[in-house]
């Protein structure tokens, strides 16, 4: 593994890409959007922006599942925890502010909120506590949804429930492209999500919005290669879906994953924090799994709470319309220690990543 990693970080290849990118550099400034916290971490951690042409700006869109989880869903999770369930979720989810408080604050006030690394961990807790309802607050995109689907298909105990807040990437991309047509020059699509949904899922978008879409992996050279393919398409004036991650993405369709999803979930509208409702962008449980549906079991509905603290630019950051450093709160009022907006909380949030790895200045 170490060998393989160092291969995709070879500085000689990076230098070659820097020169290729220089040759392909567009004359006018262009905006490339990716939708994946892991891409942003790679870009920031390895200082890749310093290798890009001045005219190329790369921004993270709605790529942080924790950040885009709506206040309504968070409020529902809070209510479930307050009704006496053991609420299990991923670590950074516990720090995102809901309307009244964070899950962490709810825990301090006596609720049983636990951090898990997977849906399977939550099932294990349910088996250890058959006397109590255990609820998995399921956030994440197409990459984490299979984990949730798998535990539900594996006869979980009757005291195990899921509060589903899973979201789908292609509809979010469409919302992004529809809001500002022609402003986004290219999309760097997330490699892991793409192995689940297949690259073919992006084709309608590329055609409808005449925008090139390139699926890229997560090592520094993967990202540079993906950006190079996008710039090449921009120069050629094409709008194709290309695969810059052939070592993982081998098929255009993933029928197994689709079958798994269809067994457990149906697609419906979902509310994204900062963006609003996007049709067909969320999963909900099929009626066959009603017995494990936390929303029904606990009869919770979300309040439409405060989505945006004063001055917070998270909505613009999530829509790739602002850089974290454009926000007046960034680094002053809003830090990972005392986050104001969700993009500073989620470990995949652009503000959090920039704070750790310094997205600006371009050195």
């Amino acid at each position, binding site marked *: *593994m170490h060998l393989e990693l160092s291969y995709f*970080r070879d500085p000689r290849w*990076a230098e070659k890409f820097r020169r290729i990118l220089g040759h392909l550099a567009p004359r006018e400034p262009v905006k490339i959007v990716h939708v994946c916290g892991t891409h942003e971490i790679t870009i920031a951690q390895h*200082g890749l922006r*310093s*290798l890009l042409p001045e005219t190329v700006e790369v921004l993270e869109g709605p790529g942080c599942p924790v950040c885009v989880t709506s206040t309504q869903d968070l409020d529902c999770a809070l209510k479930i925890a307050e009704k006496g369930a053991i609420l299990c979720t991923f670590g950074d989810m516990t720090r995102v502010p809901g309307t009244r408080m964070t899950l962490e604050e709810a825990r301090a006030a006596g609720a049983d909120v636990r951090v898990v690394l997977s849906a399977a961990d939550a099932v294990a807790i349910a088996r250890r506590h058959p006397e109590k309802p255990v609820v998995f607050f399921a956030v994440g995109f197409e990459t984490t949804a299979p984990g949730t689907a798998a535990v539900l298909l594996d006869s979980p105990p009757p005291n195990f429930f899921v509060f589903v807040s899973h979201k789908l990437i292609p509809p979010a991309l469409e919302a992004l492209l529809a809001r500002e047509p022609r402003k986004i020059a290219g999309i760097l699509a997330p490699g892991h999500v793409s192995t689940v949904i297949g690259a073919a899922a992006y084709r309608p978008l590329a055609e409808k919005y005449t925008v090139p879409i390139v699926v890229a992996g997560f090592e*520094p050279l993967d990202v540079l290669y993906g950006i190079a393919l996008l710039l090449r398409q921009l120069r050629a004036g094409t709008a194709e879906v290309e695969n810059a991650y052939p070592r993982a993405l081998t098929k255009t369709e993933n029928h197994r994953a689709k079958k798994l999803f269809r067994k457990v979930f149906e697609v419906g509208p979902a509310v994204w924090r900062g963006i609003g409702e996007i049709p067909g962008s969320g999963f909900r449980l099929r009626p066959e799994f009603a017995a494990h549906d936390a929303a029904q079991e606990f009869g919770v509905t979300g309040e439409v709470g405060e989505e945006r603290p004063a001055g917070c630019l998270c909505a613009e950051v999530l829509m790739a319309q602002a850089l974290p450093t454009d926000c007046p709160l960034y680094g002053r009022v809003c830090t990972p220690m005392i986050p104001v907006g969700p993009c500073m909380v989620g470990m995949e949030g652009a503000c959090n990543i920039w704070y*750790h790895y310094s997205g600006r200045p371009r050195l």
Partner: protein
Amino acid sequence: MRRLAEEKITALHGAGGLMMEKLLVERIIPRFKIRAAGPIGLDQLDDGAVVDLPPGKLVVTTDSHVVKPIFFPGGDIGRLAVTGTVNDLAVMGARPVALTMAIVLEEGFPLSDLERVLESAAAALAGIGVALVAGDTKVMGKGEVDGIVVNTTGIGVAARPVSDAGLRPGDFLLVTGPVGDHGMAILAARNTLPLESPVESDVAPLWPALAAAIATGGITAMKDPTRGGLAAALNEMARKSGVGVEVEEEKIPVRPEVRGPCELLGFSPYELACEGRAVLGVAPEKVEEVLRALRSHPLTAAAQVIGRASSEYPGKVILRTAVGGRRFLEMPLGDPVPRIC
């Protein structure tokens, strides 16, 4: 059957009476080989120690240690408590002369564990020939403190004290060995993550390893990268010195068994603590001499130049990444692993 008071710490041990004296005289004091650095030391059980000071400037430092778990791969809280203070003196350019040690114990703390901790602290001191001249023991109720807290205060003398604010543009930055070992060892020992690591803590007193390098007179600034690791040490040195620092990722030694888990967990190895390393700023004309001096001692044999100070971006640290990108290496928010030292 042994009585409880012989196996576990009870409130009586901390009450200043006979039980306390018995504990001190029988269990604690005899373990330390060097018990005085002047006319009055540990044996006299007086209200204070009297120390004969060699010539030079007096350097004083203090630190309370609360590591969890108290026994970890490569060390324990006893060795750590000695090391932490000795290294703080050493990176000030001072030869350690004497230490004091104050221990706060939780009622019910196993006496055998206390003995192990003291044995280890005593061995660390004996290894570098430094005296323990005074001490204190307190016992708190069950739940009022978590197991054991060890405070050490150290005094040393320096012919030319070295601060962490003396970097000048052009100075080289050196690190004395691989970074992040202690942080990773503690993390792995806690068993809270699905992680196994063969890494041992680097906890070791850096005196006398640094002595020859200090004697060259070429060190302009020095720091031990404990909490917040290399990133915190470099940022602090850059900020206090008013210079920029640029380091090269390729040159920073990190063991693969530290880097691997860091990649998986999303930690930066540059933010993990070290307990047996120093970061040095060295004047350009003295670099070869300092490197030779460091490499002649096994504890600092892997010493390496990792970067240079400049007048670009004063107060900031720039990392040239392995792929050739450049970014700021920010001051860590806090240590990714709490309660490490």
